[in-house]
């Protein structure tokens, strides 16, 4: 501590230790207390379900690609994520997932739609008539009357600490995925 260089070294290294301890404490509190569970309501109008047989891609003209059965549906989502926003919440990543059983696989999960909530003000979701953002296609490229159930999943990105998440139980949604018309 005799000269400036020594004092500056001690000062800044202790400052890093101190801020590191504060942030480690914040992360530990978050991982112990966790985040609450959310109740949500997803409603699907089965009239909005359409299945078409087409190729992947916007052009549709690559005749080397095989055709798949694409299902498209619209749903309403009600979920209040405000309890999840505490001092250590940076953003919440929300996804809607369709789950079904098929002949070849016991569990299939397809992400239909996702969003990122960045602040408490936009955390109360009351969305109507959302179309699925991502393709609802089966691995076998055909649908054969499987019943799909929708559920809501979320992942919380903290400022410091581990990523934690949760999901609602699957709600039977009365969607029967039938083969395409053609």
């Amino acid at each position, binding site marked *: 501590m*005799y000269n*400036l260089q020594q004092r500056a070294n001690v000062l800044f290294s202790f*400052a890093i230790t101190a801020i590191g301890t*504060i942030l480690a404490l*914040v992360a530990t509190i978050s991982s112990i207390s966790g985040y609450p569970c959310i109740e949500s309501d997803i409603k699907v109008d089965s009239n909005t379900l359409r299945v078409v047989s087409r190729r992947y891609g916007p052009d549709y003209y690559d005749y080397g690609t095989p055709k798949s059965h694409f299902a498209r549906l619209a749903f309403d989502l009600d979920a209040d994520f405000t309890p999840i926003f505490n*001092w250590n919440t940076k953003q919440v990543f929300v996804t809607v997932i369709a789950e079904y059983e098929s002949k070849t696989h016991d569990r299939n999960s397809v992400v239909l739609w996702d969003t990122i909530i960045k602040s408490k003000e936009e955390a109360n979701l009351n969305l109507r008539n959302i179309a699925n953002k991502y393709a609802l296609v089966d691995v076998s490229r055909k649908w054969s009357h499987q019943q799909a159930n929708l559920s809501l999943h979320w992942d919380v990105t903290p400022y410091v600490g581990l990523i934690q998440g949760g999901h609602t139980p699957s709600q039977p949604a009365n969607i029967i995925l039938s083969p395409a018309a053609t």
Partner: protein
Amino acid sequence: MTLADYFEWTIDFEGQGLADQLTHLILISFAVIGFIVGYVSESLLITVGIFLVGLIIATVVILPPWPMYNRHPQKWLPSTKATK
């Protein structure tokens, strides 16, 4: 005296002990205050902000060679002539 010589900013031995105690005192107290205020007002930004203010205050109090760090200058023995 060059600029590098000026910025030595040396302090005496007792002053070094005082500077050490002050860095711990200032930084720990601002860290604790920042944690409590941030927890109560639900904002991590406030916690880190209060700590940064504390760091700036600590820089001003500890780095320059204030007179309080030079109150006990080293007492050297008077020089003696070399005997043959």
